[in-house]
């Protein structure tokens, strides 16, 4: 088991009252799993993914990654895990505006290796898997552009490539197919499925029903609670 989440809560105060954005969640993920979490906007799935990736700290409960409880690790250690072992794809594609798309994609690698971010040419990218992912995602020809010159869909695909650059053990994707047309959405799901097939644990939060057919485990998130497929309305999809 790569990820073991138990009794997880994230509590916020809204208009003076407490509410649980994540409410007593139990979740497990294994290498090679493709988990799909479905939920409406505001159901708490983005909050859950932020807790799974260590970006956010839970109010209660534990997130155990490869046997290490995030709660017992320093911020440095959790950040290092996130850099090296977790590929996080946020819902909104955010980029450093003054670096090229390729430099942004290679940012986690530069950070891991302590290298300069600047890259002159795609030929500098010696990693065959990354070059192949860029081709698969259809953005290889755009990598020398600046982020502002790309469409929302192209940026989304670049953000996916960035999440894969350090060959993470877990990929956590928040609405990876938003802003994508049907063809590109399929490309993205196919790529994530291929990753899962090669042993990466993939966790996707999505509205997109097309994602269900890729999932080994399907969950529904509703008002902060995570329900397994057998208990959800979408389990049969």
């Amino acid at each position: 088991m790569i990820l073991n989440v138990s009794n997880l809560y994230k509590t916020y105060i809204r208009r003076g009252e407490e509410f649980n954005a994540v409410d007593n969640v139990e979740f497990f993920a294994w290498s090679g799993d493709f988990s799909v979490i479905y939920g409406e906007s505001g159901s708490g799935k983005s909050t859950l993914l932020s807790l799974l990736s260590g970006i956010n700290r839970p109010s209660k409960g534990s997130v155990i990654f490869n046997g290490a409880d995030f709660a017992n690790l320093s911020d440095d250690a959790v950040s290092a895990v996130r850099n090296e072992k977790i590929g996080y794809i946020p819902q909104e594609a955010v980029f450093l505006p003054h670096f090229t798309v390729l430099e942004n994609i290679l940012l986690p690698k530069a950070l891991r290796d302590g290298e300069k971010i600047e890259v002159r040419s795609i030929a500098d990218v010696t990693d065959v898997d990354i070059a192949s992912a860029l081709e698969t995602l259809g953005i290889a020809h755009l990598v020398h552009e600046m982020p502002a010159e790309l469409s929302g869909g192209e940026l989304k695909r670049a953000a996916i490539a960035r999440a894969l650059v350090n060959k993470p053990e877990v990929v956590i994707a928040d609405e990876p197919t938003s802003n994508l047309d049907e063809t590109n959405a399929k490309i993205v799901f196919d790529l994530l499925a291929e990753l899962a097939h090669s042993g990466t644990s993939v966790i996707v939060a999505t509205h997109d029903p097309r994602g269900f057919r890729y999932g080994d485990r399907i969950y529904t998130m509703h008002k902060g609670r995570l329900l397994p497929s057998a208990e959800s309305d979408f389990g049969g999809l």
Partner: protein
Amino acid sequence: MNKTDLNLIIENYLRNPFRSFGLSLLIALLASVLLVGGLLSFSLSKGLNRLSSRLGADVIVIPQGSEINDQTVLLQGDSKYAYLPQGSLEFIRGLDGVEIATPQYFLTTLSSSCCDQKVLIIGFEPASDFVIQPWIHEVLTDKLPKGAIVVGSDISVGEKRTVRFFDHEYPVAATLEPVGNKLDQAVFVDVATLADIREAAKAKGVIFLHQDVKSEGSDSPIYSSVLIKLRAGADIERLSREIHTRFDGVQIRTRKDLFSGLEKSANFLQIVVWSIVALFLMIAVAAIVISFSLSTRERRREYALLRIVGYARKRLRTLVLGESLLVSAVGTYIGLLLSSVAFFTFKIWIGEHVNVPFIVPGNAEIAAVYAVVVLLLHSVGPLAVYGVANKVSKIDAYAALREVEH
């Protein structure tokens, strides 16, 4: 900090050149005033100390009612014509409590071959002098040769090591260490050589009016000033009363009087300088804090992204501090370069216009001032933005991303 951080810091500096260079220029101004302030401060302090150690006399008697001012004549070496009443030296020597009294004579030439400006000639009496000869002995171990002169540090003597007055060449026996005022442009001679110079002047038709007119028909010479060393326990007030009772038109200044005025001037200058430094420091700190606060607010998405890809909170703080350090460092070196050129180019002009003794400090002291300025200004940026950097390090990346989403 590794190459990734450095790369981000430099890129962020360059991508907003107006903001970055604007802040650096502010730091450059601060560096300039701090460096010049520090050097001025050292120079004034050194000038006062050197002069104090050289003055030697406890009491100085000078003419009153003339344009002569105690500080400008005796300390600054300015040269207006006025002389003490005849017989004053002999009277003073006879007073109770006076250990030694020595006269000095001031003459001013028109420009000589040595200088572009008037040269002050100070004559001393070798037998009684206890002020000038100790200075001379610092650079000349032997007795001053007959007819030779000693010059202040600013007087150029050329390869021949002579100075020309009224068509006569006078050999220069030694050049004194700088004092930091117009005495550095003075020539020191014994009374015999002074008489030669006066004769040479007469031969050229130049007459030193007061000196010659007043001394006519009298065996008793007149002097520009009398410097007194007192015996231990001597009553200065009584001495002063006795001189005033005997002679009209004299001023009596103690060493303390003379230096208190100078110290006041020097202190005032220092207050002005350090007030300007404080003002610039406040402006620079405020500008840096405001600018970084606004900038980090605009860049919340970027910081959130860095958190997502694995930046630890400490490292985010380092990034912000690093940017402020770069702003400070660029400004510091620009400021030091420009102000160094200005200060060392115009140091003589500054020395002449501050109106208090001014000696540029030695290399070790200059290096110390530079080191302090560099250390202080490199820390200004990081200290100013420490709060902002801490705030950035605590950024809620998840919330920052959601702000973007909605």
